[in-house]
């Protein structure tokens, strides 16, 4: 009896190694996407954010963004607002962490005050837009659990469809469905499901371009809120990689100097 079980096990073992669970497959794809997007060092870009309400009225914000890749931890990012004029010079510094809460500071130029702020604000709107803080923060592998769903063709491109579930506290989402391009290993579309598990928002990525022969970045992102009818467009311009930024450009003094 015992030997039979052993033989059976020996036969099944290689099989189980090949037949991945959907969770393993999902993680594998996410890990591959993460691997391919490693090594960019530092990045700078300018952004235009266009907010649209249900009636289609638009308002615009100009933002500058810079990021530093940190080995073995989440990225450091610094965002400066150039408009609206009343918040000009307001800057936001974030040290992302994979498992523990992010460190975040806000600089208020009128008071010359640097304020450490709580990173518990994940689901709240970023600058009145349809992007939540958790949507714009760096997407570390450990922040989600993954499950492979299927393959699908989106706008003529083959994608992996993966479900990911936030593992960090205070997320506004029960789950997200991500369509990952099989060639670029970058998302083409994300659906966000709210705490009641109803579809809340859809994010689509457009006009990808490759930088340094390796890193794909979209020129346009469209976030549509299905429950409010509001939407936000993010236009990315002047992507620059490996510009020589150092940790010093992401400290609290740099936040005050961001202008």
């Amino acid at each position: 009896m015992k030997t039979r079980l052993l033989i059976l096990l020996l036969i099944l073992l290689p099989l189980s190694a090949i037949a991945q669970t959907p969770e393993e497959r999902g993680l594998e794809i996410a890990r591959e996407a993460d691997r391919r997007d490693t090594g960019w060092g530092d990045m700078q870009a300018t952004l235009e954010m266009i907010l649209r309400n249900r009636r289609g009225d638009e308002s615009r914000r100009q933002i500058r963004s810079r990021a530093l890749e940190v080995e073995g931890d989440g990225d450091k990012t610094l965002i400066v607002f150039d408009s609206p004029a009343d918040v000009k010079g307001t800057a936001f510094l974030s040290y992302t962490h994979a498992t523990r809460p992010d460190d975040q500071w806000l600089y208020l130029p009128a008071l010359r005050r640097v304020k450490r702020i709580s990173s518990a604000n994940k689901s709240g709107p970023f600058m009145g837009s349809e992007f939540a803080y958790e949507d714009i923060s760096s997407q570390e592998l450990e922040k989600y659990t993954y499950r492979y769903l299927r393959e699908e063709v989106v706008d003529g491109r083959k994608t992996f469809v993966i479900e990911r579930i936030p593992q960090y506290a205070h997320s506004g989402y029960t789950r997200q469905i991500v369509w990952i391009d099989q060639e670029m290993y970058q998302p083409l579309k994300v659906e966000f499901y709210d705490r009641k598990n109803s579809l809340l928002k859809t994010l689509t990525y457009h006009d990808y371009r490759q930088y340094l022969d390796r890193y794909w970045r979209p020129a346009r992102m469209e976030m549509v809120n299905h429950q409010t009818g509001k939407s936000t467009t993010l236009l990315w311009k002047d992507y620059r990689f490996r510009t020589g930024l150092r940790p010093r450009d992401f400290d609290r003094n740099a936040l005050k100097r961001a202008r």
Partner: protein
Amino acid sequence: MSRSTGRLAVLALLLALAPAVGAARSEWSGNISLEYRAFVQSPLDPRQHGDNLSGAFEPRWFYESDDGRDSLLFEGFVREDQGDAQRSHADLRELLWERVGEDWELRVGIGKVFWGVTESQHLVDIINQTDLVENFDREDKLGQPMVNLSLVRDWGTLDLFVLPGFRERTFPGIAGRFRGPLPVSTGEARYESADGDRHVDYALRWSSAIGEWDLGLSWFRGTGRDPDLLFAGDRLIPFYPQIEQLGLDAQATLDSWLWKLEVIHRRGQGAAYWAATGGFEYTLYDVGGTGLDVGLLAEYLYDERGGNAPTPFDDDVLAGVRLAFNDEQSSEILFGVIQDLNGDGEVINLEASRRLGERFKLELEARWFRDTRAGSLVDSLRADDYMQATLGWYF
């Protein structure tokens, strides 16, 4: 005023020279605002004005060199006030050259610096003089001449300050509101130091962020920013003593909680004393998925000098609510009550702001002084309840 004008002339010269340096990155910005204050009661002193219109202009300019190592910053301020001649004033808030090195930063000129973490008052913040005539909440500051070297190291940032030249606090004039029964005569200011307003002050500050803690330790020696007010018949005369002050500011950011503490120990202004402000801000983010943040604030304000303290906040509690709507217009409301625990009175504060379009911002502010005890500091403001609307245009 003439001193400011002189400085503005220097600035104009610098601006004229700037293009020759090579226009790496430079930009003008700023705002023009119109403010209307409506007072609920008639003033205690018939010489004081009633409802009041006021306008201010705040231009800003910066230049940054190609490599970002050198910057030149300018911020000016001019106000024209209907009712109070003292409130019609100009100030050079900033005219600063900044150089950034590998692990140091040097700033030379006139600058503004903020230290601290609490909301109700800023005990530790001592570099800049308060522009009290702007608003008695003490949030507005005058530009301070300084040489500031920052050493940025792994163990934190060490800031060394040499502060040549002292700025006198501004006070409401005879016709101004928010003053006691007697006006302060700023022209007659007296100093403990024989150097008067030329005394050179020094300050040091170490600050660091360690995990969820943001810490600051500071030391200041020189002319105290808070004057004693000497009785002189029909007016008060400010007296600026030489002080030494140690300060600690700490914030622990734990999930949705911000725990805050500021402590100072001051010598040289009467008997040595301690003062502290401590409390928390707890925020409920994105309430019900609406994007609304509800922040609850509570702080305790203490001054060892008690009833003899020249501040009304010797044994007081602040309770407040901050609403941030996180909408397109960045709408915000802050409501707070500071209550004296010994029955001196309470101050009720309401502030709200909202952007209009892309370039305008409307701000509302209202303050009431209630249940004030005769003879207390708050009592001198009992007839100054007001509501204020400010419309600003930003460029």
